[in-house]
């Protein structure tokens, strides 16, 4: 009976440098997915600057999302927002907007875990049912799979995220923003493997030593930037491949999902495809608009959560910048 009623959810994503507004319907259609990105004038993301950007474009991004969905705010049944993990000031900006809208429209609020949302939109967009997921971005590096009510973490970075490693190196080397694609382009011109630390600790990874080493190698002037980018990519992604492959063997999952902004990298995609093939698993790659931080993933996960009875009262809607993926109950899959 409930399935006959199609609900519409607005999702607000603001964990880092992207402000995303998406509209999802409970039948699994995405009506809108608008993303605006804060580009720092120099250096990396400054949380306060990113939050200021998000606040400035909040109104117009909302209008654009509603227009693009062909609906008005009155057509919304509930509001979902990214409650964590992420940068506090950015998260707070999105959460404030979500609360204000929910109160104004008199509709429920649903707090969503950003990492869960990346996996759920990946499943929706690719049709994967029960994948082992490699989620790689500027802020996260996680190998995860669903087991007994939650997304369990099989491997993760012990320090910085792989995307952070690539971005920081590209800034050091004076490459244009965004860093990942710039490194990827140059890597195609390189071919000499420079010895760099390959750090896999059990199922976990460490990228801070690799970043230090590749930065020092760059400053030494001994190597071409092309070879440095080539070696950095090969080592950084091979580490991911190793942990992913081991988790795939351990869990015996039949699907392998690559998601997050770094998932756009062609070299990493080739590695994941090769690993999946080796283990007889079906690889799937999340389209970039859904792989990067976006509002549609929050809206869709909001739908899943809402329909499992999850509500977030205003007085419990405070953000949690350190909300771990494996602490979230996932009743819609149980």
């Amino acid at each position, binding site marked *: 009976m409930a399935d006959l009623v199609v609900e519409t959810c607005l999702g607000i994503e603001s964990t880092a440098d992207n402000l995303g507004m998406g509209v999802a319907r409970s039948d699994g259609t995405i009506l809108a997915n608008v993303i605006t990105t804060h580009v720092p004038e120099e250096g990396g993301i400054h949380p306060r600057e990113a939050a200021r950007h998000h606040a400035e474009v909040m109104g117009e991004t909302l209008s654009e999302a509603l227009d693009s969905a062909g609906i008005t705010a009155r057509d919304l049944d509930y509001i979902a927002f990214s409650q964590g993990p992420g940068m506090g000031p950015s998260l707070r900006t999105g959460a404030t907007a979500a609360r204000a809208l929910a109160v104004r429209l008199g509709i429920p609020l649903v707090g969503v875990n950003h990492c869960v949302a990346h996996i759920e939109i990946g499943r929706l967009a690719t049709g994967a049912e029960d994948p082992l997921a490699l989620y790689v971005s500027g802020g996260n590096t996680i190998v995860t799979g669903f087991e007994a009510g939650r997304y369990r973490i099989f491997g993760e970075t012990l320090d910085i*995220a792989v995307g952070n490693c690539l971005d920081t190196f590209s800034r050091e080397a004076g490459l244009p923003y965004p860093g990942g694609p710039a490194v990827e382009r140059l890597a195609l011109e390189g071919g000499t493997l420079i010895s760099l630390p390959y750090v896999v600790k*059990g199922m976990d990874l460490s990228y801070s030593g690799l970043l230090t080493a590749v930065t020092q190698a760059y400053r030494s002037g001994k190597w071409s930037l092309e070879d440095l980018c080539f070696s950095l990519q090969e080592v950084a992604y091979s580490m991911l491949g190793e942990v992913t492959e081991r988790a795939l063997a*351990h869990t015996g999952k039949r699907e392998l999902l690559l998601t997050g902004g770094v998932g756009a990298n062609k070299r990493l995609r080739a590695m994941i495809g090769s690993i999946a093939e080796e283990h007889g698993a079906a690889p799937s790659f999340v389209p970039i608009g859904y792989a990067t931080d976006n509002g549609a993933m929050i809206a869709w996960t909001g739908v899943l959560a809402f329909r499992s009875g999850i509500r977030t009262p205003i007085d419990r809607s405070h953000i949690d910048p*350190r909300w771990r993926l494996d602490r979230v109950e996932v009743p819609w899959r149980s």
Partner: protein
Amino acid sequence: MEELTLIAKGAEADILLDPDWNGVKAIIKRRGEKRYRIPELDAAIRRSRTVREASIIHRAKEAGVPTPLIYGVDPDGARIVMEYVEGEKVRDVVDRIGPRERARLFKEIGMKAGLLHGAGIAHGDLTTSNIISGGGRVVFIDFGLAEMSEDVESRGVDLNLMYRMLMSTHYEHTEELFVAFKAGYEETLGEAREALDRMDEISKRGRYVERE
């Protein structure tokens, strides 16, 4: 000559059974090529891990930690020939046995882990898939990621992985199993407290965990 049988295809290596290797039942661990890695990086990783694994397995045994006997090493072929250990992976045993047996098993594992660390060896992949239970003893296998290290950091990483595995795979008994493990570990390693404290610290270094 009898044929080799593939008995396990690990993520990193194939485990082959040779029923008659110079008259004994033997395991051949062969690190296969990983097509996702470029050949140069792949060869360097496989060669160095093969040599390191064989030498560390030997040292662990000297320290009183049951490990397979090494019969032969082929670095370029990335192969180790070693004793076939009768038994079952602890991972598959845990959910089948009762609480008392579980506690005894994990105390024993903790004691051997303490001896291992005391000998300056960090296993590097200390999971319940890499310990075989059989014939009343536990045998540690797969030293492919092991390193000679007396660093409290490496010990902490081992302990953290064991704990994480108990959480992800044996979530019904996580605390109970770890309490038993810890008791054994503290019994055989003088600096156990330090390593356990470091484990706590490492677990908090993961992304987005609760920090006090």
